[in-house]
């Protein structure tokens, strides 16, 4: 993919949208082994909390169509993303294991329409907490894994398949072992479902042992976390580590603590799809920064 600057990117995106810049400042790249790594700029799309199978006309009367519209919106980008990530709650929860599998398949059928053919999936508690990720793994593979793209090391953490929302000792050890191979200046992106920090534990918006993951990441100078779960855009810093929550593609939730009880925000017929969306993340490697473009489901 050719390098594109911000002005070109906005033109290519063609949808407008809010831009959030996240400085990374990574002058050095790569692993400790000193391998030569490609450093081209690139962009990728984050979808989150698609809740396929949700049914509630007052909340989203287009529950069957919203994800399809978002897929079409991404497909309409002139410059296709290098890849798409789904940060959990692909499906809406069900106690029925058969229906869970049907929903996962239905979700996959829809997103298979993406023009971008490299897609990474993460589980949310709605997908995985009631069977410890069994159905998810049958269809999408591992719950935690890594991949590398043009000099950026991506780490997928699973904080959803344990009903207690824990990463667990085994995964934390795996994370620590993986990080041992990284240079202190290597650009690292963590993808996960729940916030790793205590955003609002009163609404279960936290990962109980997330502080251990942040502690393991803290020695690395260029770490950014993208996550979902809270159904709204949110930006937070733990020290030098930036955490960016994405909107949902089914229903928005109120800001943390803004209402007495956590609940979906009702559909506004005057502003359909308000509060829903996805984001395009531009990694300007040579300029040492990310730009996050919040994009709507449909053009306003």
């Amino acid at each position, binding site marked *: 993919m050719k390098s594109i600057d911000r002005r070109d990117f906005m033109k290519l995106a063609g949808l407008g949208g809010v831009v959030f810049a996240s400085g990374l400042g990574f002058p050095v790249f790569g692993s400790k082994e000193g391998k030569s790594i490609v450093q081209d700029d690139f962009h990728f799309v984050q979808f989150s909390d698609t809740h396929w199978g949700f049914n509630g006309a007052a909340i989203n009367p287009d529950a069957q169509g919203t994800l399809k519209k978002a897929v079409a919106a991404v497909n309409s980008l002139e410059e296709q993303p290098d890849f798409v990530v789904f940060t959990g709650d692909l499906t809406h929860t069900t106690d029925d294991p058969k229906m869970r599998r049907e929903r996962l398949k239905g979700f996959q059928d829809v997103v298979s329409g993406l023009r971008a053919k490299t897609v990474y999936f993460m589980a949310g508690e709605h997908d995985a907490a009631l069977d410890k990720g069994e159905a998810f793994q049958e269809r999408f593979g591992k719950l935690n894994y890594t991949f590398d793209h043009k000099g950026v090391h991506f780490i997928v953490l699973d904080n959803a398949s344990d009903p207690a*929302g824990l990463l667990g000792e085994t995964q934390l050890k795996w994370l620590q072992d993986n990080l041992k191979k990284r240079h202190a200046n290597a650009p690292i992106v963590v993808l996960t479902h729940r916030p790793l920090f205590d955003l609002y534990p009163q*609404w279960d918006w936290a990962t109980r042992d997330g502080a251990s993951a942040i502690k393991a990441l803290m020695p690395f100078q260029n770490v950014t976390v993208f996550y979902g779960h809270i159904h709204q855009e949110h930006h937070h810093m733990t020290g030098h580590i930036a955490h960016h929550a994405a909107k949902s593609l089914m229903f928005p939730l109120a800001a943390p603590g803004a209402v007495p009880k956590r609940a979906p925000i009702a559909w506004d017929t005057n502003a359909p799809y308000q509060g829903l969306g996805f984001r395009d993340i531009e990694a300007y490697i040579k300029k040492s920064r990310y730009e996050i473009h919040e994009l709507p489901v449909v053009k306003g």
Partner: protein
Amino acid sequence: MKRLIILTLLMGLVFGIPAHQTAFGVGSTKGKVIRLTAKKFAYSPAEITVKKGEPVVLELTSKDSKHGFNLPDFGVRADVKSGSVSRVSFTPDKVGRFTFACDIYCGSGHEDMSGTLVVTE
């Protein structure tokens, strides 16, 4: 400490549960005892009123699957299991309305499973 161990063993005998299933939180185990039951997807009672500065002991049980009880404003949490009683104790040091919630995913109504602790002067 000896008295505490004896008390724990007696509780186990009274409630028919092993002593190791009794969880104690930070602070004294003496105080106003409040029993709280969890079941999908609510706590009973859903609202508890206590007084600032007075020690509280919560006795938590589940009527169905495993739940959590998390009261982050006071650093109090416990697993809530069927067939056993979890006890957490604390002394509220501020007044107001504070949310407690289930933090163990328990099904389609998990997000609705919360309650309120009211602390008065």
